[in-house]
């Protein structure tokens, strides 16, 4: 009888060698462990044994059963492993291109804006936004540029018709709505809403009534900055802008403040920079941004006492910075959205 058991164990081992599918395995299992299987049958033989023979046989039977079940378990695992492997399909040729191949990416103007915002964030400036549709008062008058001010000539402003109404753009009186010509209007909106000390950076879209060419665009982007606190000085202005420009263009950078004029700052400056790593523009003075100390009149217009508060403001063109940084020669590239252009900068954060 015990020999029979050994034969059955051997039989199981043999059969399983030829088993390659789950179905074969099930069948093999039935042959040995099923109700009519050889081991089940052999187990039934216990009834014919004497009481003394039974424990030994029982022990042998258990051992045989354990062995056989072990074989089946191992076999099952290997069949499953093979099936798992088969489900993976063809082996991969890693040199083939990805499908789909959408890389995605940010626009170069976003990259520059994010860099600017992140540099200023490090020195405590946070983003403030206001609307692109503005009113004449917020865009000009509040910035010390009354209607007959010469500076207003230079702003070729896009107006909305006198009868147009805007539900979510507040007016001072009944003045006309315009598309903002600069982000400087965010200074005013923010100073009305929040109290100093205040340090904001205001990136956004602006509009001028300009003919589109290589350097002019119907809309463009600026970043305004504003710092109002007690005892803010020209020295602080220079320090902040030097820090910013060095972070943006590299340490080997010279800057200078060149006197200029903006109605809402006094004194006013253009900031020039000279850097060795700007391609064709290397090592010569190039104008990069405008700045100045907030004019006392502007502070008064937003109900701040200029004897108590002072501040500086600055503005730079995002397109201009992007063009200088990347050596782009035509502003229209930014608005054509050709993949061959965009993909060059899509991960150039």
């Amino acid at each position, binding site marked *: 009888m015990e020999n029979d058991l050994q034969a059955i164990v051997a039989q199981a081992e043999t059969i399983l060698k030829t088993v390659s599918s789950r179905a074969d395995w099930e069948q093999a299992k039935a042959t040995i462990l099923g109700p009519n299987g050889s081991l089940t049958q052999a187990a039934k033989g216990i009834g014919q044994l004497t009481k003394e023979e039974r424990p030994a046989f029982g022990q042998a039977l258990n051992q045989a059963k354990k062995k056989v079940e072990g074989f089946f378990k191992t076999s099952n695992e290997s069949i499953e492993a093979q099936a798992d492997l088969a489900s993976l399909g063809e082996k991969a040729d890693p040199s083939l291109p990805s499908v789909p191949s959408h890389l995605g990416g940010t626009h170069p103007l976003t990259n520059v804006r*994010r860099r600017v915002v992140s540099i200023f964030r490090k020195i405590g400036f946070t983003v403030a936004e206001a609307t692109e549709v503005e009113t004449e008062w917020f865009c000009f008058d509040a910035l010390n540029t009354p209607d007959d001010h010469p500076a207003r000539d230079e702003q070729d402003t896009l107006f909305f018709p006198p009868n147009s109404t805007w539900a979510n753009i507040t007016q001072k009186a009944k003045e006309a709505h315009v598309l903002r010509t600069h982000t400087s209007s965010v200074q005013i909106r923010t100073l009305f809403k929040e109290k100093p000390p205040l340090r904001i950076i205001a990136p956004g879209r602006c509009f001028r009534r300009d003919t589109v060419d290589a350097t002019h665009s119907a809309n463009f982007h600026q970043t305004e900055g504003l710092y109002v606190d007690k005892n803010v000085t020209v020295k602080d202005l220079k320090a902040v802008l030097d820090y910013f420009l060095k972070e943006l263009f590299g340490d080997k950078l010279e800057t200078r403040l060149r006197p200029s004029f903006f109605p809402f700052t006094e004194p006013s400056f253009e900031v020039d920079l000279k850097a060795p790593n700007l391609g064709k523009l290397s090592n010569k003075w190039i104008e990069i941004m405008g700045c100045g100390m907030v004019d006392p009149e502007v502070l008064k217009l937003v109900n701040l006492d200029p004897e108590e508060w002072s501040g500086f403001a600055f503005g730079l063109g995002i397109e201009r910075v992007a063009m200088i940084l990347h050596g782009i020669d035509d502003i229209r590239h930014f608005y054509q959205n050709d993949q061959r252009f965009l993909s060059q900068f899509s991960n150039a954060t």
Partner: protein
Amino acid sequence: MKISLDWLSAYIDLPDNPDDLIDVLPMLGIEVEAGEEQSSRNLDHVVVGEILSKVPHPEADRLSVCAVEVGGEKPANIVCGATNFQPGDHVPVALPGAKLPGGFKIKKSKLRGVPSEGMMCSAKELEIGTDDQGLLILPDNPKVGTPIEQLLSEDKVLELEITANRGDCLSYLGVAREISAYYQRKYNTPKVADLGIKHEECPDGHFLNSVSIESKDCSRYGAWSIQGVSIAPSPDWLKARLESVGLRPINNVVDITNFVLLETGQPLHAFDASKIKGKTIQIRQAKENESITTLDDVKRKLDPSMMVIADGETPLVVAGIMGSVDAEVNTTTTDLVLESAWFRPGSIRHTARKLGLHTDSSQRFSRDVDPQGLEYAAQRAIDLILEIAGGKCLPEYVCKGSAPRGERKIEITQAYAERICGFEIQPEQLSSAWKRLGFLVEGNDPWHVIVPSFRSEVERPIDLVEEFLRIHGTKDLQDTPVVCPSTSRENDGTYEVCQKATDNLVGQGYQEACNYSLRSGEEINSWHPSFDTNSLSLLNPLTSDHTHVRASLLPGLVDNLAHNQKNLNDLTRVFETGRIFRPGPRGNVEWISIAFASFSEPNSRQWKTQAKLDFFGIKNQFLSVLHAMGLSLPKGDWENLSKSAPWQSDYSAKIGDCHRNKLEASIGILDLQLTKKKEAKGPVFAVEILIDPILLSKRKKAVTFTRFSSFPPAIKDLALVVQGDTPAESVRSDLEQIAISVGSDQFEVDPVTIFDLFQGQGMEAGQKSVACSMRFRALDRTLSEKEVNQAFDTILQKIDQDTPYELRT
């Protein structure tokens, strides 16, 4: 403004290397545009020639044949058509090989049978002046054979950009003052004869009987009488001055007024006295329907917002801008009335803008001329007129009104200057800067600084600080550390939400695009036919394709997809974030929009096929970006969009309403006709999210934790037969409501999910089967089969009673 350095040197000694000014002026606040290099003109082979002899051409009456010494082996034989020269004159000669600025090449040739070895040139032919009436006779007999370039290169013309606040610099004397302040050397104001005697009313012998100021926009008006002038071309030196800055000489009197305008910045106007009807001058607003034909021969309609200088009958000058042809000084003029006045800058600017007529005169008046400089400028012009055009001036003149501003005294302290500048300043640094600018400085901390009348914009202590910095410079401010106390402010929510959307969409394989906010009315009409397009229109658009502000980012994105498809670029997913503008019940609104668009397939063939993008793919992308932005779906149901441009009926849906919920989203396929019109091939899947900025100004509440069961769930599936047009979501949510009510306080129900949808064989036409899976869990135990079955039976009963759905068996 063009400035000739040669002319400028008449008022101040320039640095040895005049190019230094290109670096110095900008640091004073005067930008120098790329210096107009005279030598950029190619005048090779054009030399000084001396005319030795002149004989008539044997075959042509109008031509002469000249022998011209040009420094070669023998004189050149040149045929010439001009008549304004004599033997002995020195003229520019273009020799064979020269190429004149107009492109004309000089070769040896024959003219009517006579050989000609070059060409004698006029100023215009060389583009060094505007005179084309004859040869340019070179003054001072320069050496024969000298390249003409060498004679010209002495003068350099700079294009200066004067900021709007510095009207006083729109003149040679103004620029000389700035240079004088920088180099600390004196500048020289031309001496003039004693000013005449001023009268409030017209004195006897004056060509005018009355001058009346009837406009509030004129503060001072002076008129001088000059008798017996001879109008003729200006002398060469005067012509050369004007031509050097691109002005066309006209006649001596007009040229002198232009010269003095450029020299002093005070515009003057010379009238032919005989053409002033009624011997009267009125400074008044134009009348309704009045018109004037200005010197540029354009008839212009005037209106009462414009100020004119009129005689007893008609306007003679658009005040401060341009005169009329009717009172023009011309060759028949013998008697002059010379005007020198101060007009309100805003008024002149307004009129010049309205008429689209910007002149040297209007430019200066609108930048505020020196109200105390009227007499000096007039006397300077009178001196020149008497010298050049003869005649005599009545010493008594009329001048009405008073100067709107004069000198000002400003008090300032050292502490104030230091408070603004942020660095230590020596007292003498301050006072010396102001003195260099020609200001009078009295006292010592506080100083009383007296600012002359020509500096209109220096009125306050802060302006004096600016003047100090302009002269002192900010070179000391190097390597200053940033002092930045912390601020407690966060980025605005409106900014952050777009950044989050951007990051998510880039992660989903979308490329950011950037499109113009200005669109055509036609596009808005076809994409949003339900909008009142007019309400989004601009008053003064520049071009016909930029007449309206955008109502949506989608048209631009479709342009981008089509552009890249056309160019075989592998870009089929684009997005943009930005501001859009919509009409609304209480007026227009400006909202934030995040939109993205995608073709369903790549633009080029791929080695491996993949499933096309479909509605549910784009829906998933939408939910992903919304989630990343930290927003939840607005309340309400998805609404099928049907006949709702720009969306394709039955393949698009909308949720929320931005006017009501401050948030809305539309997703699906864009109208096939619209996208086809933009030449996009294939359906465009798109998502448009609209956000009212006010939504983002609220602080979000903290999320409260909800306990969940740690016991295994019991799962029950069922399929319901419903009408084909019933939204699957309402079936699902009805079932979920029932399940929750049945579970009540005994167990909880996970969100019910749809796992199968079936229509067709075995179903009645117009019906579909929605299969849902429910999971029940109790917080405290494993649910028994009995209670689950009991609950399930109750659910089936309720479906039967409360819903039109039938259990699919």
